[in-house]
């Protein structure tokens, strides 16, 4: 499903080149539930951006569902994001002037789906996350948990193979966080690959596998243990 080969990413800061990712190789199979953890500044956000096709690696190859997307241009990357990836963000990132239903319809607008089908599919997705009675509410009128459910509905509406959640529970209380993670587990049970970036170990526990990132490299499980000891 996902294969990263020796991915590096460096930024130019003035004249100095800063290496954020130093040769990351990684493989995630279809249907896995993976947590990516790491302290801030470890490069996990950059890694997530590359996996999410929001950013391109400086070097290395990235295969998503068999496609080598590392050299795609902006337009092709937009298509990949639209068709193959569902995003869930910490700050929900709903458009404040659109109703829940219209927010869920957004990815389908860019996929060129007809209005009628859009509405039917958006309703279906909202029903799935248990918000069929909140469809016409603006984000302002929804609680944090409800907002995140709308965001999850939006992420699954184009039926992507991969859901990428960046600190999805960061702005929620622990009870709601568990509900949201249950939602992800349910989706994972249906065969969708889920990657959650988090720094909370309770959240990571929902995953089948945890990947630790530190200083731009992936730490082996053994190193993880050593890291915990020191």
């Amino acid at each position, binding site marked *: 499903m996902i294969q990263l080969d020796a991915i590096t990413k460096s930024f130019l800061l003035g004249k100095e080149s800063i290496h954020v990712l130093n040769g990351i190789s990684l493989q995630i199979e279809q249907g896995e539930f993976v947590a990516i953890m790491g302290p801030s500044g470890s490069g996990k956000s950059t890694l997530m*951006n590359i996996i*999410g096709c*929001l*950013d391109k690696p400086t070097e290395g190859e990235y295969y998503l569902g068999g496609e080598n997307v590392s050299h795609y241009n*902006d*337009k092709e990357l*937009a*298509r990949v*994001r*639209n*068709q193959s990836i569902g*995003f869930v*963000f910490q700050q929900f*990132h*709903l*458009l404040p*002037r659109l109703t829940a239903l219209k927010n869920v319809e*957004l*990815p389908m*607008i*860019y*996929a*060129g789906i007809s209005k009628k089908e859009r509405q039917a599919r958006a309703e279906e997705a909202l029903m799935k996350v248990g918000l069929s009675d909140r469809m016409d509410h603006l984000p302002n009128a929804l609680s944090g948990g409800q907002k995140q459910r709308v965001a999850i509905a*939006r992420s699954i509406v*184009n039926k992507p193979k991969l859901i990428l959640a960046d600190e999805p529970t960061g702005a929620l209380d622990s009870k709601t966080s568990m509900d949201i993670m249950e939602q992800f587990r349910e989706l994972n049970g249906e065969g969708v690959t889920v990657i959650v970036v988090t720094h909370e170990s309770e959240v990571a526990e929902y995953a089948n596998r945890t990947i630790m990132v530190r200083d731009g490299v992936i730490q082996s499980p053994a190193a993880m243990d050593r890291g915990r000891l020191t």
Partner: protein
Amino acid sequence: MSFMENLSMSLSSLKAHKMRSILTMLGIIIGVGAVIIVVAIGQGGEAMLKSQITGPGNTIEMFYQPSDEEVRSNPNAFQQAPFKQEDIRALEQIPEIKRVVATSTKISSARFQKDTADVSTTGINQAYLQLNQLKVAKGRGFSSADFLGGRRVGLISNKLQEKLFKEENPVGKVIMIANQPIEIIGVLEKPTGLLAFGSMEVFLPFQTWRNIYGSSDFTQVTLQASSAEQLQTAGKKAARLLNNLHNTEKSYQVINMEEIAQGVGQVTKIMTLIIGSIAGISLFVGGIGVMNIMLVSVTERTREIGIRMALGATRGQVLTQFLIESMTLTLIGGVLGIVLGWGTSTIVSFFAGWPSLVSWQVVLSGVLFSMVIGVLFGLLPANKAAKLDPIDSLRYE
């Protein structure tokens, strides 16, 4: 993503900032409105001037301009009335000519009781009434019997009435013109219009005029052609005929009103262009206002742009979204501006007394032009939006 989708999206985002959208539109409304007003009033004024110069109903004036030799052989050539009765009859035979209006004018004194005034007395033939309406305010107009019998009756202008009669009703009174009695049968209406100014005039049937002055020649001849296309041919034929009859080379000529009208049209066109381009500047300033607001809007909505890009919007789609938004803004402004311009120019022309000409071409180009302004001044902000980096935009607070 369809155009309609973009349109409804831009309408809802314009609605979200109503006050700002309206104020931004105001620049376009005023700009388009000003251009429409200037063009409409300019074209209306031009049409009115032209119609006043060419006169009603395909007419052309003849005049007599003796050559140097004629003046040498006949020093009185200038003083004589150049058109004879036979000339008029000959002119009436030309097939392209529908009517020959012949008049003769002399200045003489008019007297009523003790008041006198210098008046221009014009003898007219019956054809004159077909072409020039002598609108009578009091009393009656001429009848056929007045012309045929050479009755001693006359119509006086409004100004002459004021001079000789003050408040008194002059109908039925007798005034002395060149020491001959004339009964006043009616008073003409006060002239209206831009080029009309009141003068002291008396109109008489030509027979009567001839009896008073003892001359049967005409000083002025106006030809009416059967149609506008035949006007020039008729004029040329008439001039050639009279030059043959009088054995002159080109002393008889026609005034080409068409050329004069075109000259006037040229002047008003240039005026319209100058004032129109000043109005165009306000449209340009309005466009800059749109650009300014769109730039602010792009900055404010950086996060929205980031979200849209994350969800799969291409740079082209973001560009289109903002272009259509600024175009919607200027289009609505443009349509409101047309309504404003139309209304204002209708009111102005109503009070100025000339036709307002808002042609469909002006309306259409107003609509198209405001759309072009939207695209033109929307390009910079839309391009800024499309070039945003999705990662940075998502993080933008």
